[in-house]
């Protein structure tokens, strides 16, 4: 059975937040089902195949993590995005250990949510086996860890290559600063400075400097997106 990449289940008990989420996600092209309680989430979660399930940690009836465990036991394979006001790392780790695939702390910007949904949706339906990835005239070789544009090599530090690889793997979708920190540096906190922007700025100069068109685009207030024009 193939699942619809844009069919998602949102488990959220606060009606206003839920309303905003459904409205914005629908506008962004998702088909959204909403569950307001843990029991409803259990019912809906097993009834259809979702691309992603977002789940609030604190639900009125059952704890979000318990719902997630139950759904996993029932054979639900969709990735879970845990959304919670319990922000600190311990809680985060607890959520991920219990079977969550990603974690988002309230309050979050909608674009950040979208970026993470995109990344999770992609993870659930493709497993990249290629060793060479291409976007426009950019080629990156995952084996020799080198990058080039129009055949001209780009000199990158190992961490810079990792960052570029992550952007390329998420080609066309927005990647937030927190996601970069998490996947490139394995850090689970927000350094609350513009340090990531400065770092990406340097990678961008190396990748996009003196080229026909830019590949790395800034998404205001959120992060970055790598895409070829057209």
């Amino acid at each position: 059975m193939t699942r619809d990449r844009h069919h998602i289940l949102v488990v959220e008990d606060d009606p206003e937040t839920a309303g905003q989420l459904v409205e914005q996600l629908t506008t962004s092209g998702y088909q959204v089902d909403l569950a307001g309680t843990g029991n409803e989430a259990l019912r809906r979660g097993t009834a259809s195949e979702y691309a992603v399930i977002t789940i609030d940690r604190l639900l009125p009836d059952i704890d979000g993590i318990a719902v997630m465990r139950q759904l996993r036991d029932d054979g639900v394979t969709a990735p879970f995005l845990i959304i919670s006001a319990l922000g600190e790392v311990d809680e985060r780790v607890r959520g991920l250990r219990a079977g969550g695939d990603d974690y988002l702390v309230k309050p979050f910007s909608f674009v950040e949510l979208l970026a993470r949904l995109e990344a999770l949706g992609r993870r659930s339906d493709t497993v990249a086996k290629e060793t060479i990835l291409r976007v426009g005239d950019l080629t990156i070789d995952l084996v020799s860890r080198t990058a080039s544009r129009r055949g001209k090599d780009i000199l990158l530090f190992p961490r810079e290559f990792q960052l570029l690889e992550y952007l390329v793997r998420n080609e066309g979708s927005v990647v937030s600063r927190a996601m970069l920190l998490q996947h490139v540096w394995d850090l689970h906190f927000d350094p609350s400075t513009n340090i990531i922007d400065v770092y990406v700025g340097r990678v961008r100069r190396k990748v996009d400097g003196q080229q026909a068109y830019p590949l790395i685009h800034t998404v205001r207030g959120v992060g970055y997106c790598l895409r070829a024009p057209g």
Partner: protein
Amino acid sequence: MLLAKTLASSTFKLALIAIGTFGLIVSVIFSYVYLSTASYVRSRSDQAIMTEYLGLRGDYERSGRDGLIDAIRRRMNSGSSGDRVYLLVDPSVTVLAGNLGEWPPAVGSGSGWVEFRAAGPSPDVARGPLLRAMLETFPGGDRLLVGRDISGLDNFTAQIRTAVFSGLALIFVLAAVVSILVTRRTVGRIESINATSRAIMRSGLDQRIPLRGSNDEWDRVAENLNLMLDRIETLMAEVKQVSDNVAHDLRTPLTRMRGRLEKACHGPRVADLDQSLIDDTIADLDSVLRIFSSITRIAQIETQARKGGFRTVNLAEIASEVVELYDAAAEQDDTRLTVAGDREVLVTGDRDLIFDAISNLVDNAIKHGRPGGRVVVTSENSEGGAVVAISDDGTGIPAEQHEQVFKRFYRLERSRYTPGNGLGLSLVAAVVRLHDARIEMLDNAPGLKAKLWFPSPSAWTGIEVSGSPRGSPSP
């Protein structure tokens, strides 16, 4: 009031149980002493009677009735007869010899032990002495009674009995009094602690439990509770200080936002202006949220809960990762950021937090360093443990402010307008405390050198470290 509390207190109940158990044991011991004494005394007197009886019966068997009469008379006249009783009667119960007036009616014929009261010496004394005697009826019908007045013995055992009972009663009374006194004292001390607790709940943390100066365990308890109250009071004061600071720092952006929105609310809608207003407001809200999450993060670190996730980490590796992350930022500021020192500096800690602390210090060094200057991050194993030092050659911090920079929200006046919420160094301080590390601010002449001293992993018990760091002091 106090008596009611004393009687209801658990100490008193325990005392009652102890008294009960003790009393039971003492009663058993006393009864044993009494019974064995009484039976010993009785068996001694029985033995004496038996000896005499056997002697007199021998006389009768040897020399007949007359011989026995002689023997009895002899014994009666021996002077030491005292409490002894003899009586010989013929078959018609006529007294032949002896010191009893008549054959006691309570005693029939036959042989064996008898116990009876003799008739009183005069009619007005109702009860005569208690006698115990051995009885024998000879084949001819003569009857012999040999015995003793055992009233004295009876009195003796009665005395022992009285002593035992009054002793027991005394013990119970004493125990009851003592336990009431002890319980009263305990209840009194607890009551003073309770009174203080109630006063604190009613009015505030300024009350303390009075000490009696007796230096006993109650004073210890009171002392510790007072120390705890001191600690709570300090923490409350800190919390108040922090919430004042939070209120101040959050109020600024919130006021800005409110003013902006109010102005827009009353003014005409202009698409461009509205757009920038919304953008600015979101940016301000983000900064509010950042301050907020920094505070909760610091608070969370200070609960020490993260010590559970401590691992052995390489400071040198973390330092070089931080340098790598800030390399681009340094380049932008025209600062030379380099890393130096040992390649393996092992400490026990939380990578995320140490990373965060070092990046805060590096970030500060770059921001407050001299443009075109240099920032060096050095990690090394030294005598006192593992050290990571971040030094710049900028303006530095005046020596008298070295301590204050770790207070939450503290910012040097001159850098009030550089970005940052002033929480960075507070976070560093919290991380340092969590790791039992220590931070030193030194004059780098020119510039500032921040040194973090971590205890070497061997100082942590129960954590095995492979590859002992160079230069660490041997235990």
